[in-house]
């Protein structure tokens, strides 16, 4: 499973012609924000401040940010627990992230959900769906709505390779394929579904399966934000102009346990070390400095900005009150509450 991996010194893909230098710096900024926020959440978890479990997208930043950045202003995405960067790109205030982990009313879930289980955020971020695979038909349904109304909009779903073993992935992908729905499937292949290694999840190359759906598919270096963006952009453009679904495998590696409760001792040390050397955030920063789109001083300033934003978001969440137990039974049925 490592033969496709490149080393840290491998060059990144050429920047998509649509991306200005400012855009490139924005990509890095979003990746830094995800990393910095997750570093803070991990710290809070070990301090005992998080009541529930703690999941991060450590090592997935290039996929979350690169893929979501390829969406247009009216497009939507179904995101999962490793996709903080995608939510940030799509406009989620970072304060929601901390408020949700802390179980505060400042989060749109008002304490009903934890972790990064935030969705229904404006029309761009679909309802969070935790059961692996179940988000695929729902994302296809969002695309169906665009098709019904003949709107030039695209739906994207981000999910792990473990999803490919589920029936709901198949039903959603097949439905999108036969109805030619404008859907982009972005798979982060991080090589493990909890402790189950890739070769016990799926047999054969992932992208080869998509031929069975008659769906264009490609495999890219998921630790190269420019490669992810280019592939996602092509798929999004195709969905918007000619319709139909596409699949992108983003090869990466989960750099921490499934959750923070998991020591991931089942991951071979050499494999982990190899991918730690290909950290998508450090790699992209180095690339921008090497290609003279960013100075070291600017990089330092971006990191300081990210930290300040995390501090502010965290403080905002801490100031948000916990839910009133009297609210327990409220909102089971639709209240017509506007999206935050």
């Amino acid at each position, binding site marked *: 499973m490592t033969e496709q991996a490149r080393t840290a010194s491998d060059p990144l893909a050429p920047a998509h012609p649509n991306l200005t230098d400012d855009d490139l710096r924005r990509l890095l900024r979003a990746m830094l924000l995800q990393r910095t926020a997750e570093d803070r959440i991990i710290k809070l978890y070990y301090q005992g401040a998080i009541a529930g479990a703690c999941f991060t997208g450590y090592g997935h930043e290039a996929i979350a940010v690169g893929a979501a950045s390829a969406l247009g202003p009216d497009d939507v995405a179904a995101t999962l627990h490793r996709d903080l960067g995608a939510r940030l790109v799509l406009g989620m205030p970072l304060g929601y992230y901390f408020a949700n982990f802390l179980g505060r009313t400042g989060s749109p879930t008002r304490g009903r959900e934890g972790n990064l289980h935030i969705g229904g955020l404006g029309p761009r971020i679909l309802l969070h769906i935790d059961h692996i695979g179940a988000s695929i038909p*729902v994302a296809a*349904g969002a695309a169906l709505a665009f098709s019904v109304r003949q709107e030039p909009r695209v739906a994207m779903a981000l999910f792990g390779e473990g999803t490919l073993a589920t029936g709901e992935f198949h039903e959603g992908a097949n439905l999108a394929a036969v109805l030619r729905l404008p859907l982009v499937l972005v798979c982060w292949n991080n090589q493990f579904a909890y402790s189950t290694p890739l070769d016990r999840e799926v047999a054969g190359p992932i992208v080869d399966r998509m031929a069975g759906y008659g769906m264009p598919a490609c495999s890219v270096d998921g630790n190269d934000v420019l490669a992810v963006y280019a592939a996602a952009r092509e798929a999004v453009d195709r969905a918007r102009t000619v319709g139909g679904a596409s699949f992108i495998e983003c090869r990466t590696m989960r750099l921490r346990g499934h959750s923070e409760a998991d020591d991931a001792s089942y991951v071979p040390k050499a494999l982990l070390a190899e991918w730690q050397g290909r950290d998508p955030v450090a790699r992209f920063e180095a690339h921008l400095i090497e290609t003279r789109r960013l100075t070291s001083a600017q990089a330092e300033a971006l990191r300081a900005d990210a930290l300040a934003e995390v501090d502010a978001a965290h403080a905002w969440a801490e100031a948000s009150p916990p839910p009133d137990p009297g609210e327990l039974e409220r909102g089971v049925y*639709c209240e017509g509450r506007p999206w935050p």
Partner: protein
Amino acid sequence: MTYLEAIGDGLRSAMRADPSVVVLGEDVGAYGGAFKVTKGLLEEFGPRRVIDTPISEAGIVGAAIGAALMGVRPVAEMQFADFISCAFNQIINVAATSAYRSGGCVPMVIRAPCGAGTHGGPFHSQSVEAHFFHTPGLKIVMPSIPADARGLLLAAIADPNPVLYLEHKALYRSQRGEVAEGLIQTPLGHAAVKRPGRDVTVVTYGMMVHRCLEAAEGAARDGVEAEVIDLRTLLPLDLETITVSVTRTARVLIVHEDRLRGGIGAEIAAHLGEHLFTSLDAPIQRIGAPDTPVPYAPALEAAYLPDADLIRDAIVRLARW
């Protein structure tokens, strides 16, 4: 018109009134549906709004949820209610929890032809309401007559929540009646008193409404007047209408086609036992199907289903307790 025609007419009226209403499911378009409920819709509204899907109940319901989140009003069809188990996850974990978890409303209807009496056997005869009755965030309706079939469907489509619309196959062509025109709704959450009576309250729904009415006529010949309540909406239950009637009659029989154990009747009985115990002059009685799958052979299927004689005897016995 027939019960079946009333459903089709309700769909057509809703689709004419609101371009965001779409229909999706297996064989619903070109073929007009396995039971012909959606016949003619494709011709009138075109393939963007009448969508034939592959065999994929989870895919159909999931897609309906996603479309609903984007402002479409989908009416998804399960070809038989029995197949809805394949979409269980989408209904209970995704659609039903959406409002509570994030405030995201999922205005969608899942139509499901249910029930026994058509010799469909274990996989084409089930009553599925109890599987979903346990789930907060859903609404469940089951009409017994054409007017409610149309009116409840229009109310379900207009409701901002996921609504499970259970239509009884044995009533499709056996029930005829007047229906309203336009967009007149049968409001959700309101039971109907189908027959007034002073002696015994009979709470029922679906196909059993008709057997209970027949039984009540039989009991009347023995001098017992039963009041028959058609729940129409199973979730949320109209406990008020039941309470008003039971407070007056002091005797209650609950009848459903579904199995007794863990059924809707068990919840109603528990509620009445907790809240109306001192008003009751006799133990709460229930009639339902036994703890078996639904059998195929006509003799077995008839034995499985509660019949009017059984219900009449229970009414009379209860009145004379």
